[in-house]
Protein backbone atom coordinates (compact mmCIF):
# COMPACT_ATOMS: atom_id res chain seq x y z
CA UNK A 1 0.00 0.00 0.00
CA UNK A 2 2.77 2.36 0.93
CA UNK A 3 4.54 1.65 -2.35
CA UNK A 4 1.38 2.44 -4.33
CA UNK A 5 0.94 5.66 -2.41
CA UNK A 6 4.57 6.54 -3.03
CA UNK A 7 4.27 5.90 -6.77
CA UNK A 8 1.09 7.98 -6.95
CA UNK A 9 2.76 10.77 -4.99
CA UNK A 10 5.78 10.66 -7.34
CA UNK A 11 3.41 11.20 -10.27
CA UNK A 12 1.15 13.97 -8.95
CA UNK A 13 3.62 15.57 -6.48
CA UNK A 14 0.95 17.64 -4.78
CA UNK A 15 -0.93 17.86 -1.53
CA UNK A 16 -4.37 16.21 -1.30
CA UNK A 17 -7.14 18.00 -3.18
CA UNK A 18 -9.03 18.54 0.04
CA UNK A 19 -6.56 21.30 0.91
CA UNK A 20 -6.31 24.71 -0.75
CA UNK A 21 -2.61 24.10 -1.32
CA UNK A 22 -3.42 20.85 -3.12
CA UNK A 23 -6.01 22.57 -5.32
CA UNK A 24 -3.47 25.22 -6.34
CA UNK A 25 -0.70 22.69 -6.91
CA UNK A 26 -2.96 20.57 -9.09
CA UNK A 27 -3.04 23.49 -11.50
CA UNK A 28 0.43 24.92 -11.43
CA UNK A 29 2.45 21.73 -11.05
CA UNK A 30 0.74 20.24 -14.11
CA UNK A 31 2.02 21.23 -17.53
CA UNK A 32 -1.41 20.73 -19.17
CA UNK A 33 -3.53 22.40 -16.54
CA UNK A 34 -1.32 25.37 -15.74
CA UNK A 35 -2.72 27.35 -18.66
CA UNK A 36 -5.45 27.96 -16.07
CA UNK A 37 -4.87 30.22 -13.12
CA UNK A 38 -5.08 28.47 -9.75
CA UNK A 39 -8.06 30.66 -8.94
CA UNK A 40 -10.62 32.15 -11.29
CA UNK A 41 -13.25 34.81 -10.87
CA UNK A 42 -16.45 32.89 -10.39
CA UNK A 43 -18.32 35.48 -12.42
CA UNK A 44 -16.13 34.83 -15.50
CA UNK A 45 -17.42 31.27 -15.65
CA UNK A 46 -21.01 32.35 -16.27
CA UNK A 47 -22.36 30.58 -19.32
CA UNK A 48 -24.08 33.62 -20.77
CA UNK A 49 -20.86 35.68 -20.80
CA UNK A 50 -19.06 33.47 -23.33
CA UNK A 51 -21.50 30.62 -24.16
CA UNK A 52 -18.30 28.50 -23.79
CA UNK A 53 -17.88 28.80 -27.57
CA UNK A 54 -14.09 28.86 -27.38
CA UNK A 55 -14.06 25.71 -25.28
CA UNK A 56 -16.55 24.00 -27.59
CA UNK A 57 -14.50 24.92 -30.67
CA UNK A 58 -11.39 23.46 -29.04
CA UNK A 59 -13.23 20.27 -28.08
CA UNK A 60 -14.54 19.94 -31.66
CA UNK A 61 -10.96 20.24 -32.86
CA UNK A 62 -9.99 17.43 -30.47
CA UNK A 63 -12.78 15.25 -31.92
CA UNK A 64 -11.52 16.06 -35.43
CA UNK A 65 -7.94 15.10 -34.58
CA UNK A 66 -9.01 11.82 -32.96
CA UNK A 67 -11.48 10.70 -35.64
CA UNK A 68 -9.13 12.02 -38.34
CA UNK A 69 -6.26 9.83 -37.14
CA UNK A 70 -8.63 6.85 -37.03
CA UNK A 71 -9.78 7.50 -40.60
CA UNK A 72 -6.16 7.74 -41.77
CA UNK A 73 -5.75 4.04 -40.98
CA UNK A 74 -8.08 3.16 -43.88
CA UNK A 75 -7.37 5.91 -46.39
CA UNK A 76 -4.98 5.95 -49.36
CA UNK A 77 -4.59 9.34 -51.05
CA UNK A 78 -4.48 8.15 -54.69
CA UNK A 79 -7.35 8.80 -57.13
CA UNK A 80 -9.18 5.52 -57.65
CA UNK A 81 -8.30 3.97 -54.26
CA UNK A 82 -9.28 7.05 -52.27
CA UNK A 83 -12.89 6.67 -53.38
CA UNK A 84 -12.83 2.88 -52.86
CA UNK A 85 -11.58 3.47 -49.33
CA UNK A 86 -14.53 5.81 -48.77
CA UNK A 87 -16.84 3.01 -49.87
CA UNK A 88 -15.05 0.64 -47.50
CA UNK A 89 -15.49 3.14 -44.69
CA UNK A 90 -19.17 3.29 -45.60
CA UNK A 91 -19.87 -0.43 -45.82
CA UNK A 92 -16.97 -2.57 -44.58
CA UNK A 93 -15.00 -0.92 -41.79
CA UNK A 94 -16.34 -1.48 -38.27
CA UNK A 95 -17.85 1.85 -37.13
CA UNK A 96 -16.60 3.40 -40.37
CA UNK A 97 -19.74 5.41 -41.19
CA UNK A 98 -19.97 6.58 -37.57
CA UNK A 99 -16.35 7.83 -37.49
CA UNK A 100 -16.61 9.51 -40.88
CA UNK A 101 -19.87 11.18 -39.92
CA UNK A 102 -18.39 12.39 -36.64
CA UNK A 103 -15.47 13.87 -38.56
CA UNK A 104 -17.81 15.55 -41.05
CA UNK A 105 -20.30 16.99 -38.54
CA UNK A 106 -17.59 18.10 -36.12
CA UNK A 107 -15.94 19.96 -39.00
CA UNK A 108 -19.21 21.70 -39.90
CA UNK A 109 -19.92 22.47 -36.24
CA UNK A 110 -16.44 23.92 -35.86
CA UNK A 111 -17.02 26.38 -38.70
CA UNK A 112 -20.25 27.45 -36.99
CA UNK A 113 -18.71 27.72 -33.51
CA UNK A 114 -15.66 29.64 -34.70
CA UNK A 115 -17.97 32.13 -36.38
CA UNK A 116 -20.25 32.45 -33.35
CA UNK A 117 -17.20 32.80 -31.09
CA UNK A 118 -15.99 35.65 -33.29
CA UNK A 119 -19.41 37.33 -32.99
CA UNK A 120 -19.40 36.94 -29.20
CA UNK A 121 -15.91 38.43 -28.93
CA UNK A 122 -16.91 41.33 -31.15
CA UNK A 123 -20.20 42.16 -29.43
CA UNK A 124 -18.60 42.05 -25.97
CA UNK A 125 -15.75 44.30 -27.19
CA UNK A 126 -13.24 41.72 -26.02
CA UNK A 127 -10.80 42.51 -28.83
CA UNK A 128 -9.93 45.85 -27.26
CA UNK A 129 -6.64 46.71 -25.61
CA UNK A 130 -4.64 44.67 -24.60
CA UNK A 131 -6.26 41.85 -26.59
CA UNK A 132 -5.97 43.38 -30.09
CA UNK A 133 -3.43 40.89 -31.37
CA UNK A 134 -5.33 37.92 -29.98
CA UNK A 135 -8.23 38.96 -32.23
CA UNK A 136 -5.81 38.83 -35.19
CA UNK A 137 -4.74 35.33 -34.16
CA UNK A 138 -8.42 34.43 -33.92
CA UNK A 139 -9.02 35.59 -37.51
CA UNK A 140 -6.05 33.46 -38.63
CA UNK A 141 -7.58 30.50 -36.78
CA UNK A 142 -10.86 31.12 -38.62
CA UNK A 143 -8.98 31.05 -41.94
CA UNK A 144 -7.16 27.86 -40.91
CA UNK A 145 -10.52 26.27 -40.02
CA UNK A 146 -11.84 27.10 -43.49
CA UNK A 147 -8.57 25.89 -45.05
CA UNK A 148 -8.84 22.58 -43.24
CA UNK A 149 -12.46 22.21 -44.36
CA UNK A 150 -11.48 22.99 -47.95
CA UNK A 151 -8.53 20.57 -48.10
CA UNK A 152 -10.59 17.87 -46.35
CA UNK A 153 -13.25 18.28 -48.97
CA UNK A 154 -11.15 16.86 -51.82
CA UNK A 155 -10.12 13.69 -50.00
CA UNK A 156 -13.24 11.51 -50.67
CA UNK A 157 -12.60 11.99 -54.41
CA UNK A 158 -16.29 12.02 -55.27
CA UNK A 159 -18.06 14.37 -57.68
CA UNK A 160 -18.68 16.98 -54.99
CA UNK A 161 -15.01 16.89 -53.94
CA UNK A 162 -13.63 17.06 -57.45
CA UNK A 163 -15.76 19.97 -58.63
CA UNK A 164 -15.61 21.96 -55.40
CA UNK A 165 -11.81 21.87 -55.63
CA UNK A 166 -11.78 22.61 -59.37
CA UNK A 167 -13.94 25.69 -58.82
CA UNK A 168 -12.14 26.69 -55.61
CA UNK A 169 -8.62 26.56 -57.03
CA UNK A 170 -9.75 28.36 -60.17
CA UNK A 171 -11.06 31.19 -57.98
CA UNK A 172 -7.54 31.44 -56.56
CA UNK A 173 -6.04 31.71 -60.03
CA UNK A 174 -7.84 35.04 -60.51
CA UNK A 175 -5.59 36.60 -57.85
CA UNK A 176 -3.41 39.21 -59.57
CA UNK A 177 0.18 38.35 -60.60
CA UNK A 178 0.73 35.14 -58.63
CA UNK A 179 -2.73 33.53 -58.94
CA UNK A 180 -1.90 31.02 -61.66
CA UNK A 181 1.40 29.99 -60.06
CA UNK A 182 -0.18 29.55 -56.62
CA UNK A 183 -2.81 27.28 -58.14
CA UNK A 184 -0.14 25.19 -59.87
CA UNK A 185 1.84 24.96 -56.64
CA UNK A 186 -1.26 23.89 -54.71
CA UNK A 187 -2.32 21.31 -57.30
CA UNK A 188 1.19 20.14 -58.19
CA UNK A 189 0.01 20.28 -61.80
CA UNK A 190 -2.40 22.00 -64.15
CA UNK A 191 -5.57 20.10 -63.33
CA UNK A 192 -7.07 18.48 -60.24
CA UNK A 193 -5.49 15.03 -60.32
CA UNK A 194 -3.21 12.62 -58.43
CA UNK A 195 -0.69 15.30 -57.53
CA UNK A 196 -3.42 17.58 -56.19
CA UNK A 197 -4.89 14.84 -54.00
CA UNK A 198 -1.59 14.01 -52.29
CA UNK A 199 -0.81 17.70 -51.73
CA UNK A 200 -4.22 18.42 -50.24
CA UNK A 201 -3.76 15.33 -48.06
CA UNK A 202 -0.41 16.58 -46.76
CA UNK A 203 -1.91 20.00 -46.07
CA UNK A 204 -4.95 18.47 -44.38
CA UNK A 205 -3.24 15.95 -42.09
CA UNK A 206 0.11 17.63 -41.38
CA UNK A 207 0.67 21.26 -42.33
CA UNK A 208 -2.61 22.95 -41.41
CA UNK A 209 -3.27 21.00 -38.17
CA UNK A 210 0.26 21.83 -36.96
CA UNK A 211 -0.29 25.52 -37.64
CA UNK A 212 -3.68 25.27 -35.97
CA UNK A 213 -2.19 23.77 -32.81
CA UNK A 214 0.62 26.35 -32.70
CA UNK A 215 -1.75 29.30 -33.05
CA UNK A 216 -4.29 27.79 -30.63
CA UNK A 217 -1.59 27.55 -27.97
CA UNK A 218 -0.66 31.21 -28.51
CA UNK A 219 -4.36 32.16 -28.48
CA UNK A 220 -4.91 30.45 -25.10
CA UNK A 221 -1.65 31.68 -23.62
CA UNK A 222 -2.52 35.28 -24.40
CA UNK A 223 -6.02 34.93 -22.92
CA UNK A 224 -4.38 33.73 -19.71
CA UNK A 225 -1.82 36.55 -19.74
CA UNK A 226 -4.52 39.14 -20.41
CA UNK A 227 -6.51 38.27 -17.31
CA UNK A 228 -8.50 35.21 -18.33
CA UNK A 229 -11.88 34.97 -19.99
CA UNK A 230 -13.12 38.37 -21.04
CA UNK A 231 -16.18 39.38 -19.05
CA UNK A 232 -18.48 42.30 -19.72
CA UNK A 233 -16.62 44.76 -17.51
CA UNK A 234 -19.24 47.45 -18.02
CA UNK A 235 -21.69 45.44 -15.93
CA UNK A 236 -19.43 45.43 -12.89
CA UNK A 237 -20.24 47.71 -10.00
CA UNK A 238 -17.91 50.74 -9.96
CA UNK A 239 -15.32 50.16 -7.29
CA UNK A 240 -14.04 52.57 -4.71
CA UNK A 241 -10.68 53.73 -6.07
CA UNK A 242 -8.90 53.66 -2.71
CA UNK A 243 -9.71 49.97 -2.34
CA UNK A 244 -8.01 48.91 -5.55
CA UNK A 245 -5.41 46.21 -5.32
CA UNK A 246 -2.98 46.09 -8.19
CA UNK A 247 -1.95 42.66 -9.29
CA UNK A 248 1.54 42.40 -10.68
CA UNK A 249 4.71 44.36 -10.09
CA UNK A 250 4.74 47.95 -8.91
CA UNK A 251 6.07 50.74 -11.15
CA UNK A 252 9.77 50.44 -11.95
CA UNK A 253 10.65 53.27 -9.61
CA UNK A 254 9.33 51.48 -6.54
CA UNK A 255 11.49 48.88 -4.78
CA UNK A 256 10.34 45.31 -5.25
CA UNK A 257 9.52 44.70 -1.59
CA UNK A 258 6.47 46.98 -1.82
CA UNK A 259 4.61 44.50 -3.99
CA UNK A 260 1.15 44.55 -2.48
CA UNK A 261 0.26 41.22 -0.98
CA UNK A 262 -2.88 39.77 0.45
CA UNK A 263 -3.03 36.92 2.88
CA UNK A 264 -4.41 34.24 0.57
CA UNK A 265 -3.05 35.22 -2.80
CA UNK A 266 0.22 33.88 -4.13
CA UNK A 267 2.18 36.00 -6.55
CA UNK A 268 4.09 34.15 -9.22
CA UNK A 269 7.64 35.09 -10.10
CA UNK A 270 6.54 35.77 -13.67
CA UNK A 271 4.21 38.50 -12.56
CA UNK A 272 7.02 40.23 -10.71
CA UNK A 273 9.64 39.98 -13.44
CA UNK A 274 7.52 40.95 -16.41
CA UNK A 275 6.01 44.04 -14.95
CA UNK A 276 2.24 44.18 -15.29
CA UNK A 277 0.89 41.25 -17.23
CA UNK A 278 -2.64 41.44 -15.92
CA UNK A 279 -4.41 44.54 -17.04
CA UNK A 280 -7.44 44.50 -14.83
CA UNK A 281 -7.34 45.79 -11.33
CA UNK A 282 -9.65 43.96 -9.02
CA UNK A 283 -11.42 45.01 -5.90
CA UNK A 284 -11.18 43.18 -2.59
CA UNK A 285 -14.82 42.09 -3.00
CA UNK A 286 -13.91 40.44 -6.28
CA UNK A 287 -10.88 38.90 -4.69
CA UNK A 288 -13.29 37.18 -2.34
CA UNK A 289 -15.39 36.13 -5.33
CA UNK A 290 -12.43 34.16 -6.77
CA UNK A 291 -12.77 30.39 -6.59
CA UNK A 292 -10.31 27.57 -7.16
CA UNK A 293 -10.10 26.36 -10.77
CA UNK A 294 -10.45 22.88 -9.31
CA UNK A 295 -13.28 22.03 -9.25
CA UNK A 296 -15.26 25.09 -10.43
CA UNK A 297 -13.66 25.78 -13.85
CA UNK A 298 -12.70 22.18 -14.58
CA UNK A 299 -16.19 20.93 -13.80
CA UNK A 300 -17.77 23.38 -16.25
CA UNK A 301 -15.19 22.58 -18.93
CA UNK A 302 -15.81 18.86 -18.47
CA UNK A 303 -19.57 19.44 -18.90
CA UNK A 304 -18.92 21.43 -22.10
CA UNK A 305 -16.64 18.63 -23.36
CA UNK A 306 -19.22 15.93 -22.64
CA UNK A 307 -22.08 17.89 -24.22
CA UNK A 308 -19.96 18.53 -27.34
CA UNK A 309 -18.84 14.91 -27.74
CA UNK A 310 -22.25 13.37 -27.06
CA UNK A 311 -23.92 15.94 -29.32
CA UNK A 312 -21.66 15.11 -32.26
CA UNK A 313 -22.05 11.37 -31.54
CA UNK A 314 -25.84 11.64 -31.44
CA UNK A 315 -25.99 13.55 -34.75
CA UNK A 316 -23.62 11.02 -36.35
CA UNK A 317 -25.85 8.13 -35.27
CA UNK A 318 -28.84 9.53 -37.15
CA UNK A 319 -27.30 11.44 -40.05
CA UNK A 320 -24.53 9.94 -42.14
CA UNK A 321 -21.94 11.93 -44.08
CA UNK A 322 -22.94 11.98 -47.76
CA UNK A 323 -20.84 10.47 -50.52
CA UNK A 324 -21.54 11.15 -54.19
CA UNK A 325 -20.47 9.18 -57.27
CA UNK A 326 -16.79 8.73 -58.17
CA UNK A 327 -15.16 11.93 -59.44
CA UNK A 328 -15.79 12.33 -63.17
CA UNK A 329 -13.77 15.15 -64.78
CA UNK A 330 -15.96 14.96 -67.91
CA UNK A 331 -19.30 15.57 -66.23
CA UNK A 332 -19.97 18.54 -64.00
CA UNK A 333 -22.99 17.99 -61.76
CA UNK A 334 -25.69 20.58 -62.29
CA UNK A 335 -25.81 22.64 -60.14
CA UNK A 336 -22.27 22.12 -58.84
CA UNK A 337 -22.33 23.46 -55.29
CA UNK A 338 -19.52 23.97 -52.81
CA UNK A 339 -20.03 23.10 -49.10
CA UNK A 340 -22.58 25.45 -47.49
CA UNK A 341 -20.02 27.68 -45.77
CA UNK A 342 -18.50 28.49 -49.17
CA UNK A 343 -21.84 29.05 -50.93
CA UNK A 344 -21.79 32.75 -50.03
CA UNK A 345 -18.45 32.95 -51.80
CA UNK A 346 -19.79 30.93 -54.73
CA UNK A 347 -22.77 33.30 -54.98
CA UNK A 348 -20.33 36.23 -55.21
CA UNK A 349 -18.23 34.35 -57.75
CA UNK A 350 -21.27 33.74 -59.96
CA UNK A 351 -21.44 37.50 -60.49
CA UNK A 352 -17.73 38.16 -60.96
CA UNK A 353 -14.79 35.84 -60.39
CA UNK A 354 -12.25 38.59 -59.78
CA UNK A 355 -14.41 40.94 -57.68
CA UNK A 356 -16.43 38.26 -55.92
CA UNK A 357 -13.83 35.54 -55.63
CA UNK A 358 -10.70 37.53 -54.81
CA UNK A 359 -11.31 41.22 -54.09
CA UNK A 360 -14.37 40.90 -51.83
CA UNK A 361 -13.03 38.04 -49.64
CA UNK A 362 -9.62 39.73 -49.38
CA UNK A 363 -11.26 42.98 -48.27
CA UNK A 364 -13.41 41.11 -45.76
CA UNK A 365 -10.39 39.40 -44.20
CA UNK A 366 -8.41 42.66 -44.13
CA UNK A 367 -11.36 44.43 -42.50
CA UNK A 368 -11.62 41.71 -39.84
CA UNK A 369 -7.87 41.88 -39.16
CA UNK A 370 -7.99 45.69 -38.90
CA UNK A 371 -10.94 45.88 -36.48
CA UNK A 372 -8.97 46.13 -33.18
CA UNK A 373 -6.61 48.79 -34.60
CA UNK A 374 -9.26 50.76 -36.47
CA UNK A 375 -11.76 50.87 -33.61
CA UNK A 376 -10.14 53.43 -31.26
CA UNK A 377 -13.16 53.68 -28.97
CA UNK A 378 -11.92 52.49 -25.56
CA UNK A 379 -15.39 51.74 -24.18
CA UNK A 380 -16.74 48.20 -24.20
CA UNK A 381 -20.25 49.24 -23.19
CA UNK A 382 -22.64 48.37 -26.09
CA UNK A 383 -24.45 51.72 -25.83
CA UNK A 384 -21.13 53.50 -26.54
CA UNK A 385 -20.41 51.34 -29.60
CA UNK A 386 -23.53 51.75 -31.74
CA UNK A 387 -21.61 52.29 -35.00
CA UNK A 388 -19.27 49.37 -34.51
CA UNK A 389 -22.15 47.06 -33.63
CA UNK A 390 -24.20 48.19 -36.63
CA UNK A 391 -21.32 47.68 -39.06
CA UNK A 392 -20.45 44.24 -37.72
CA UNK A 393 -24.10 43.17 -37.74
CA UNK A 394 -24.39 44.21 -41.40
CA UNK A 395 -21.26 42.14 -42.13
CA UNK A 396 -22.77 39.09 -40.41
CA UNK A 397 -26.19 39.48 -42.07
CA UNK A 398 -24.73 39.97 -45.57
CA UNK A 399 -22.67 36.80 -45.16
CA UNK A 400 -25.65 34.81 -43.91
CA UNK A 401 -27.95 36.09 -46.69
CA UNK A 402 -25.39 35.17 -49.36
CA UNK A 403 -25.07 31.67 -47.90
CA UNK A 404 -28.86 31.25 -47.74
CA UNK A 405 -29.25 32.41 -51.38
CA UNK A 406 -26.46 30.09 -52.54
CA UNK A 407 -27.85 27.14 -50.57
CA UNK A 408 -31.59 27.38 -51.09
CA UNK A 409 -32.25 29.72 -54.00
CA UNK A 410 -29.90 28.43 -56.69
CA UNK A 411 -30.90 25.64 -59.06
CA UNK A 412 -29.49 24.12 -62.25
CA UNK A 413 -27.24 26.48 -64.18
CA UNK A 414 -27.11 28.64 -61.02
CA UNK A 415 -30.52 30.04 -61.99
CA UNK A 416 -32.55 31.72 -59.28
CA UNK A 417 -34.97 29.03 -58.12
CA UNK A 418 -36.87 29.44 -54.84
CA UNK A 419 -36.81 26.30 -52.68
CA UNK A 420 -40.59 25.85 -52.97
CA UNK A 421 -40.37 25.45 -56.77
CA UNK A 422 -39.71 21.86 -57.76
CA UNK A 423 -37.12 21.38 -60.48
CA UNK A 424 -37.00 18.00 -62.19
CA UNK A 425 -33.47 16.69 -61.76
CA UNK A 426 -31.62 16.26 -65.02
CA UNK A 427 -33.98 18.52 -66.96
CA UNK A 428 -32.03 20.50 -69.54
Amino acid sequence: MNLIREIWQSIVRRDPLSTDKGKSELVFLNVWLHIHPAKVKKENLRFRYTFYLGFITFFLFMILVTTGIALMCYYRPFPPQAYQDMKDLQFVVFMGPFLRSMHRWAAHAMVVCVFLHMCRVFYSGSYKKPRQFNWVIGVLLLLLTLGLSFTGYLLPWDQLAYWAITVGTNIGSYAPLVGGQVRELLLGGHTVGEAALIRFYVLHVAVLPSLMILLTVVHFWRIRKDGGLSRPTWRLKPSRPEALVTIGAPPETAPLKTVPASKDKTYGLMEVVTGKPIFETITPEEEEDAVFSYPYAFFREAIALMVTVTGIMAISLFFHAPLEALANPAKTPNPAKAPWYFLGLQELVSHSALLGGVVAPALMVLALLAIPYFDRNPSRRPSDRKWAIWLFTIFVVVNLVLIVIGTFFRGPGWAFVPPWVHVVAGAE
Partner: protein
Amino acid sequence: MVALGSGVAVSLGAVVRFLVPSVFYEPPQTFKIGNPADFPFGPPTFLADEKIFVFRDREKGFAVASAVCTHLGCTVGYFQSDQRFHCPCHGSVFAANGAVQHGPAPKALNWFEVTMTRDGQLRVDKDKVVPSNYRLMV
Protein backbone atom coordinates in the same frame (compact mmCIF):
# COMPACT_ATOMS: atom_id res chain seq x y z
CA MET B 1 23.27 40.19 -41.98
CA VAL B 2 23.54 40.15 -45.76
CA ALA B 3 24.85 36.58 -45.69
CA LEU B 4 22.06 35.49 -43.36
CA GLY B 5 19.43 37.28 -45.46
CA SER B 6 20.64 35.79 -48.71
CA GLY B 7 20.84 32.36 -47.06
CA VAL B 8 17.19 32.62 -46.01
CA ALA B 9 16.19 33.89 -49.46
CA VAL B 10 17.99 31.03 -51.21
CA SER B 11 16.38 28.50 -48.85
CA LEU B 12 12.92 29.91 -49.50
CA GLY B 13 13.57 29.82 -53.22
CA ALA B 14 14.68 26.19 -52.90
CA VAL B 15 11.46 25.33 -51.01
CA VAL B 16 9.29 26.89 -53.71
CA ARG B 17 11.33 25.19 -56.44
CA PHE B 18 10.98 21.88 -54.59
CA LEU B 19 7.19 22.25 -54.66
CA VAL B 20 7.12 22.83 -58.44
CA PRO B 21 7.13 19.34 -59.98
CA SER B 22 9.92 18.68 -62.48
CA VAL B 23 7.80 16.05 -64.20
CA PHE B 24 4.05 16.30 -64.63
CA TYR B 25 2.32 12.92 -64.67
CA GLU B 26 -0.59 14.32 -66.60
CA PRO B 27 -2.20 13.43 -69.93
CA PRO B 28 -0.18 14.90 -72.82
CA GLN B 29 -1.33 18.19 -74.33
CA THR B 30 -0.86 16.80 -77.83
CA PHE B 31 -2.75 13.65 -78.74
CA LYS B 32 -4.36 11.77 -81.62
CA ILE B 33 -8.14 11.52 -81.62
CA GLY B 34 -8.69 9.02 -84.46
CA ASN B 35 -9.54 8.96 -88.14
CA PRO B 36 -11.67 11.70 -89.76
CA ALA B 37 -14.24 9.08 -90.68
CA ASP B 38 -14.88 8.43 -86.96
CA PHE B 39 -16.60 11.79 -86.63
CA PRO B 40 -20.10 12.44 -87.94
CA PHE B 41 -21.30 15.62 -89.58
CA GLY B 42 -23.69 17.83 -87.66
CA PRO B 43 -23.62 17.93 -83.83
CA PRO B 44 -20.12 17.96 -82.31
CA THR B 45 -18.56 14.87 -80.74
CA PHE B 46 -17.65 15.29 -77.06
CA LEU B 47 -14.43 13.53 -76.00
CA ALA B 48 -14.75 13.21 -72.22
CA ASP B 49 -11.17 12.33 -71.31
CA GLU B 50 -9.71 15.18 -73.36
CA LYS B 51 -12.54 17.62 -72.54
CA ILE B 52 -12.92 18.77 -76.13
CA PHE B 53 -15.71 19.09 -78.72
CA VAL B 54 -14.87 17.97 -82.26
CA PHE B 55 -16.93 19.82 -84.86
CA ARG B 56 -17.14 18.50 -88.39
CA ASP B 57 -18.78 20.55 -91.13
CA ARG B 58 -19.39 19.29 -94.64
CA GLU B 59 -18.10 22.46 -96.32
CA LYS B 60 -15.68 23.89 -93.78
CA GLY B 61 -13.99 20.87 -92.20
CA PHE B 62 -12.77 20.10 -88.67
CA ALA B 63 -12.52 22.37 -85.61
CA VAL B 64 -11.84 21.51 -81.97
CA ALA B 65 -13.26 23.55 -79.06
CA SER B 66 -12.30 23.33 -75.40
CA ALA B 67 -15.05 22.11 -73.07
CA VAL B 68 -13.48 23.91 -70.09
CA CYS B 69 -15.44 26.99 -69.02
CA THR B 70 -13.18 30.05 -68.91
CA HIS B 71 -14.84 31.19 -65.66
CA LEU B 72 -13.90 28.52 -63.11
CA GLY B 73 -13.12 25.41 -65.09
CA CYS B 74 -16.39 23.48 -65.08
CA THR B 75 -17.15 21.30 -68.12
CA VAL B 76 -19.62 22.98 -70.46
CA GLY B 77 -22.24 21.13 -72.48
CA TYR B 78 -23.23 21.79 -76.13
CA PHE B 79 -26.96 21.92 -76.75
CA GLN B 80 -28.13 21.23 -80.27
CA SER B 81 -31.52 22.81 -79.46
CA ASP B 82 -30.11 26.35 -79.29
CA GLN B 83 -26.65 25.57 -80.74
CA ARG B 84 -24.86 27.08 -77.77
CA PHE B 85 -22.56 25.97 -74.94
CA HIS B 86 -24.00 26.09 -71.39
CA CYS B 87 -21.93 25.91 -68.20
CA PRO B 88 -23.66 24.13 -65.28
CA CYS B 89 -21.73 25.90 -62.52
CA HIS B 90 -22.58 29.58 -62.84
CA GLY B 91 -24.78 29.74 -65.93
CA SER B 92 -22.32 31.07 -68.51
CA VAL B 93 -23.55 30.70 -72.10
CA PHE B 94 -21.26 30.65 -75.15
CA ALA B 95 -22.28 31.00 -78.80
CA ALA B 96 -21.45 28.27 -81.32
CA ASN B 97 -18.21 30.13 -82.16
CA GLY B 98 -17.25 30.17 -78.45
CA ALA B 99 -17.99 33.85 -77.77
CA VAL B 100 -19.48 34.73 -74.36
CA GLN B 101 -23.19 35.56 -74.62
CA HIS B 102 -24.27 35.48 -71.02
CA GLY B 103 -22.99 34.93 -67.47
CA PRO B 104 -19.77 35.54 -65.57
CA ALA B 105 -17.28 33.97 -68.02
CA PRO B 106 -14.55 36.55 -68.77
CA LYS B 107 -13.52 35.30 -72.23
CA ALA B 108 -14.51 33.03 -75.12
CA LEU B 109 -13.94 29.26 -75.15
CA ASN B 110 -10.57 28.21 -76.57
CA TRP B 111 -10.20 26.58 -79.99
CA PHE B 112 -7.28 24.21 -80.45
CA GLU B 113 -5.12 23.46 -83.45
CA VAL B 114 -6.10 20.24 -85.22
CA THR B 115 -3.77 18.74 -87.83
CA MET B 116 -3.42 15.49 -89.68
CA THR B 117 -0.58 13.05 -89.03
CA ARG B 118 1.22 10.88 -91.58
CA ASP B 119 -0.92 7.87 -90.67
CA GLY B 120 -4.09 9.78 -91.55
CA GLN B 121 -5.25 10.45 -87.97
CA LEU B 122 -6.36 13.75 -86.52
CA ARG B 123 -4.06 15.30 -83.91
CA VAL B 124 -5.04 18.00 -81.42
CA ASP B 125 -2.53 20.28 -79.71
CA LYS B 126 -3.99 21.97 -76.64
CA ASP B 127 -0.90 24.17 -76.31
CA LYS B 128 -1.76 25.86 -79.61
CA VAL B 129 -4.83 28.07 -79.28
CA VAL B 130 -6.20 29.15 -82.66
CA PRO B 131 -8.88 31.65 -83.78
CA SER B 132 -12.44 30.33 -83.78
CA ASN B 133 -12.55 30.37 -87.58
CA TYR B 134 -9.62 27.94 -87.85
CA ARG B 135 -10.61 24.84 -89.84
CA LEU B 136 -8.84 21.72 -91.06
CA MET B 137 -10.16 20.70 -94.44
CA VAL B 138 -10.01 16.95 -94.99
